[in-house]
């Protein structure tokens, strides 16, 4: 009888509720340390815990769709250590955002928490590496006579880093952290030169492979060591 009443009340709440409610009687703790590309602590980095929830008005979700809610936040201390006390939401789109700001890469820890509660209510991110962003300025010019062609590819690491955890275990396949991005091109009489700027980060690797006039492929690798990394090549 009591259960039935509760159920009916719950249904009424579901239908008429236009409010979002987060998990009752829970505070989670998010811990870790923010470091740069040389594993030196970065102080004062913002760490925020978010959830995305649909807003309901009456029975229908609003047209604006999901909204992000900040559940808790804090900043890393002078040693880079952070401990965020936060509300918790059992939700498919729950994530922790470590903000590297304009000059550094960001980090996202995302997890489906609909059926998952972390052990001891702790999300331990350990070492979060926020590397200095860098631009790769790629410049190819043709110095050889018309008629010569260049097939090349350039692979570099994306500055994006989102790690997806399923029940607390990293799922590499779903994650997207500093993945290699590749560009393939052929240069010929129609477009003999190539110029492009891509975003990556310091310590990121670049792979440049090319073959001139269909010849053997040469592969060169570079490691980015400054904010503006130039690669000039001529054929």
């Amino acid at each position, binding site marked *: 009888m009591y259960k039935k009443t509760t159920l009916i009340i719950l249904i009424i709440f579901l239908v008429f509720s236009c*409010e*979002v*409610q*987060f*998990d*009752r*009687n*829970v*505070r*989670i*703790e998010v*811990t870790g340390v923010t470091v740069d590309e040389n594993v030196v602590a970065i102080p004062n980095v913002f760490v925020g815990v978010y959830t995305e*929830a649909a*807003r309901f008005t009456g029975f229908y979700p609003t047209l604006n769709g999901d909204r992000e*809610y*900040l*559940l*808790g*936040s*804090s*900043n890393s201390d002078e040693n880079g250590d952070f*401990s*965020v*006390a*936060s*509300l918790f939401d059992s939700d498919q789109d729950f994530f922790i955002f470590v903000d590297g700001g304009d000059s550094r890469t960001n980090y996202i820890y995302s997890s489906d928490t609909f059926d998952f509660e972390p052990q*001891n*209510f*702790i999300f331990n991110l350990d070492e979060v590496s926020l590397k200095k962003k860098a631009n790769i300025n790629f410049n190819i010019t043709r110095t050889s006579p018309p008629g010569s062609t260049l097939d090349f590819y350039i692979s570099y690491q994306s500055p994006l880093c989102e790690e997806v955890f399923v029940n607390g275990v990293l799922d590499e396949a779903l994650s997207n952290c500093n993945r290699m991005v590749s560009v393939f091109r052929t240069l010929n009489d129609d477009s003999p030169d190539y110029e492009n700027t891509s975003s990556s980060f310091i310590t990121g690797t670049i792979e440049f492979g090319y073959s001139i006039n269909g010849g053997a492929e040469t592969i060169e690798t570079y490691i980015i060591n400054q904010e503006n990394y130039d690669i000039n090549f001529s054929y």
Partner: protein
Amino acid sequence: MTSTSVIKFVFVLMFSMFTLSLWCQEVESKDDEEHENSSMLDYGVKGSFGVAYNVVNPSGDKYFGLAYKGKGGYALKFKLFVYDGFFLGGSSGFSYFENTNIEITGNYDKTRVGSHYLFLGYEYRPIEKLAFNVNASLFGEARHKNEYNAGNEAYQIDKAKIRAFEVSLDYFIAPNFSINLYYAYRNDKTKINTSPNLQSRFDRAQFAIIGLGVNFQFGKEAIISNF
């Protein structure tokens, strides 16, 4: 049965005991010509009910003391004398808080604490115009509604077992009417689950209440002296 429904049940029980005893006495008094000039309020089980405005002050080194700022509140109370100066009573009210440090608590900016509990106490009345009371909570539950962005868009609920201790003073300006001043200390045991590291921050909700209100007295006899 949850503790809230126990409270509701006892409230209803006590209220009906009180009203039934009033009716019962009233019928008797019609036959009894000696009791002319006295009002109906002077018969039946002795007790009082009242309403008060509260000033709330978070205290201690727990999350209330670290992050909250009191924004006032109010309470409704009633009590019935069981034996001599001993009374049983109920309190129901709300206290309001503003969250000044979300890094301590999680992100919400307002908290409304609804408190509903039963208490047991003793009243000492040295002179006709003055009564001193002490009481302590028996059981009851507090519901904390933590509101997101000050709106009604999103919220989160915490629950706590009420542990209250109160001292109070009644100054009677009429035989059935008193001004009531009290101090209550709350050391509620929260039901918040959190990491071992944060446990000591969230295990208690501690705050003090200074209340000023009015009490209406009724009845004459404690419940047990009626038998």
